[in-house]
């Protein structure tokens, strides 16, 4: 054993003559990572997303001020060394509000994704695999949701449910699941007649078993890609609802609402609108780049 532990670990990862399931999984993950890391744009997207997550998680340490503390004597100050991104009309530190706002943004995006993923999987896989009248009913329901522009639908729901983050999440989730279900159904249709599915059927596998053990793992990559790309539109919709006063309620910091409040002072204090706007743009772009990168490595059709 003359090799250092590090290089031998790498050799162990790259060796595809596996001696354990753990090695097989580690190898898969490592090779996927190697391919992903060759795409600089996707890597950039990943870095921004990781920074966003860290900022949200460590907000109390990253922020320089309390995001809710008002100080009217220090209202509408331009960016400086004490207030990096300036202060708002109530004298709150914009940078700190931006950091805490990341929590709201991520909270909405993750919650929507967690709700939408399983719904899309179950509806799409059931419609695609079982077919018949179940397919017809599920897809007509999906069509109804798809018939409305998503922002209008989200607006209608959050207006009906009342403003607030939780209601915004529900409203956005209602607009996001139909395309996911459609995607899963389309993918399922391509695998439904595959020989390995037929083999499982001939061996007596039950419908849920085939759906969850055979079809879902195959649809997973494209759904992950889709949901990552969707993150951008979820964040934009959340910001839009916040902007219109239907999302997070004051005084809790939310990027859309921050941009909306800054509108009145646009000419005197550009940073109030521009900084949250830039944050929304940057994060949406990062999720898009990450999604594109994931598509390159996960989706065999785009190889």
């Amino acid at each position, binding site marked *: 054993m003359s090799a250092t532990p590090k290089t031998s670990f790498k050799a162990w990862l790259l060796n595809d003559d*596996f001696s354990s399931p753990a090695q097989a999984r580690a190898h898969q993950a490592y090779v996927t990572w190697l391919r992903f890391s060759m795409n600089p744009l996707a890597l950039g997207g990943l870095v921004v997303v990781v920074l966003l997550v860290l900022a949200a998680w460590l907000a109390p340490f990253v922020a320089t001020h309390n995001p809710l503390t008002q100080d009217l004597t220090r209202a509408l100050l331009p960016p400086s060394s004490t207030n990096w991104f300036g202060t708002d009309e109530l004298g709150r530190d914009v940078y700190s509000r931006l950091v805490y706002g990341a929590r709201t943004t991520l909270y909405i995006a993750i919650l929507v994704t967690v709700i939408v993923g399983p719904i899309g999987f179950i509806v799409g896989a059931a419609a695609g695999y079982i077919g018949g009248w179940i397919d017809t009913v599920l897809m007509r329901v999906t069509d109804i949701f798809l018939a409305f522009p998503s922002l209008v639908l989200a607006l209608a729901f959050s207006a009906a449910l009342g403003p607030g983050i939780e209601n915004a999440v529900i409203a956005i989730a209602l607009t996001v699941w139909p395309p996911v279900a459609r995607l899963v159904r389309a993918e399922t249709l391509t695998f439904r007649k595959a020989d390995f599915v037929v083999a499982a059927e001939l061996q007596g596998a039950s419908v849920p078993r085939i759906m969850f053990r055979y079809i879902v793992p195959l649809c997973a990559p494209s759904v992950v890609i889709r949901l990552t790309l969707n993150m951008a539109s979820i964040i934009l919709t959340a910001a839009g609802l916040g902007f219109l006063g239907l999302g997070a309620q004051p005084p809790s910091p939310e990027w859309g609402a921050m941009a909306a409040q800054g509108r009145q002072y646009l000419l005197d204090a550009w940073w109030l609108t521009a900084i949250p706007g830039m944050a929304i743009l940057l994060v949406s772009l990062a999720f898009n780049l990450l999604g594109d990168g994931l598509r390159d490595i996960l989706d065999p059709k785009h190889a």
Partner: protein
Amino acid sequence: MADQGMIDIENLSITFGRGSRKNHVVRGIDVSVRQGECFGLVGESGCGKSTVLGAIAGRVKEWSGRIAIGGEQLDPARRSQAQRRRQQMVFQDPFGSLHPRHTIGRILTEPLSINRLDDQDGRVDRALEQVGLPKRFRFRFPHQLSGGQRQRVAIARALILEPEILLLDEPTSALDVSIQAEILNLLKDLRQRSGLTYVLVSHDMAVVAHLCDRIAVMKDGQLVEVASRQDMIAGDVTHPYTQMLREGSLGYRPQGVPQTA
């Protein structure tokens, strides 16, 4: 029911679609396959040979007539778990018949879990050994295997449930000649060792004659002729279509070209 075979098929008809789209694929077939026999079904594309196999396997449900396996009559629409286990299928395309994201071990364990069988590790190891693959292959993914190795895994998956009948749908037509020889030898050995009954569907007369005891020739959904292996090799066949298929497998024969439109 004096002479009861392993597989008894009487007046089997298979029709897909309804109304004007109706497609009568198999038109009244009678076949009896003895226990331990290898029975070949030969024909050109679209003759219905794979559909017959599908009906025996339980994949095709739109059939009428009578199919009995081991004397037990089958219902077109539903089968019991015990009835499903009696026959297993090996598919043509070794790239499409294994789940791309399951390891070989998982592919082989799945049928065991479905049928709630014990000693899963031991069975997987024995199945791999039976088809001549090393044990450590169970941790690999299908894309790391060659076409011949994948086909061996597909055979192991079929055998792991200890079926009485193996249904082979063009098992070597996607493989190179040298790999085909390995798989054909394997199939021959397995039958000698375990007394399995085979039904082999193929378009290649030489492959069918190599493996099968009796060969049925299908055309347009009907059986044209059933010949023994010896008769087929000797060319002692009566139907011109059988003769044509036989000649065709021998290679190119210069001849006048009939006009077709």
